[in-house]
C-alpha cells in the first residue's frame, strides 16, 4: 500500500522556511558566544521574515518546527536549553502578534505599521526577557541574576537592530525581483 500525501503550496513554503531556519540555527550554535546567553539570533530573521510576509500562523509553524527539529538534531530536545529556546520563540512571536494587532484594526489606507527593524527590536527584547525569566524562575532563582538583565537587554536591542536590517534587506530583495514564481512568493 502506498501512502499518499497531498501537499499544498503553503506546506512547501513552511517546509522551505523551516529548513532555512533550522540550518541557520544549527550553524549558529556551532559558534562560541562571547557572553553566555548572548547570540546573534539569526534564525529569528527567518521567523520575522515569515511573520511579515505570510502572517503569524505561518510564522508560528516555522518557529515551532525550528525549535523542535533543531533541538532533536543538536541533542537538546526537552533539555533546559530546549525549554529556554521554546519559551523565547513563543514569547517573541506572541509579542509580535500583540504589537501588530492594533495596526490590523486601523484602516489600512495609510501604512502605520512598524518596519522590520521595529518588529525585530520587539522580538529580540521579548525573546531575551522570556529566556531570562525562564532561567531565573526554573534554574537560578537568585535575585542577583537581575544585575545581568540590563546588559542582556542592551545586547538584545543592538542585535535586534542588526537582524531587523537583515530582514528588511531580504524582504525588499524578495518583493522586488525574480522570486515571484517560487514558493516564497507572497500571497498578497
Amino acid at each position, binding site marked *: 500500500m502506498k501512502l499518499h500525501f497531498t501537499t499544498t503550496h503553503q506546506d512547501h513554503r513552511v517546509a522551505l522556511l523551516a529548513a532555512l531556519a533550522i540550518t541557520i540555527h544549527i550553524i549558529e550554535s556551532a559558534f562560541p558566544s562571547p557572553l553566555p546567553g548572548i547570540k546573534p539570533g539569526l534564525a529569528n530573521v527567518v521567523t520575522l521574515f515569515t511573520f511579515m510576509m505570510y502572517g503569524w500562523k505561518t510564522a508560528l509553524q516555522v518557529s515551532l518546527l525550528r525549535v523542535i527539529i533543531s533541538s532533536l538534531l543538536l541533542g537538546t530536545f526537552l533539555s533546559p536549553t530546549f525549554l529556554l529556546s521554546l519559551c523565547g520563540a513563543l514569547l517573541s512571536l506572541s509579542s509580535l502578534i500583540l504589537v501588530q494587532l492594533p495596526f490590523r484594526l486601523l484602516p489600512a489606507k495609510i501604512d502605520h505599521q512598524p518596519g522590520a527593524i*521595529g518588529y525585530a527590536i*520587539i522580538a529580540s527584547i521579548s525573546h531575551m526577557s522570556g529566556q531570562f525569566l525562564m532561567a531565573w524562575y526554573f534554574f537560578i532563582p537568585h*535575585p542577583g541574576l537581575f544585575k545581568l538583565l540590563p546588559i542582556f537587554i542592551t545586547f538584545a536591542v543592538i542585535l535586534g537592530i542588526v537582524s531587523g536590517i537583515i530582514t528588511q534587506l531580504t524582504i525588499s530583495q524578495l518583493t522586488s525581483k525574480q522570486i515571484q514564481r517560487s514558493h516564497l512568493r507572497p500571497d498578497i
Partner: protein
Amino acid sequence: MTSIKGLILFKPADIIILISAGLLTLWLYSVFWFDNSQQGEADRLLLQFADNDAIEYPLNKEQIITIKGRLGPALIEIKQGKARFIHSSCRNQFCVFHGWLTIAGDTTACLPNRISISLKGSANDYDAIAGAQ
C-alpha cells in the same frame, strides 16, 4: 527616514520603538544597577551549621552567639542590625575578615568550620533585589 539606495529602513513607528527600547534599557540600568534603596533592610540572621536546619536570630537584639563548629567554637556578633564573625577556629579567618554583613542577602561562610551566616529581609526573597555591594 533613513534609506539605503531608495530602500526605507526606518519607518516612523520603528523610531518610536527604538526610542522606547532605549528608554527601557536605561530604566533597567537605573533600577538594577544604581538604585540601592531596594536593597532591603535585613531584620534577621540565619545561622547554619553543616546540614542542620538554619537557626534564626533577630537583628534588633544585640548579642554574641557562640556556636560549636566542626573545628571549634565560633563567635558571631549581632549589633545595630548588622552581624559579623568576631572569632572563628579556622585557619584562614576569611569569615572574620569579611567584616560586617549589613543588607539582606549578605552572606559569609566559614567552610572549614562548616558555619554560614546570612541576613534576610522581611520581604519575599525572590521579589526583592538584594545583590551585594
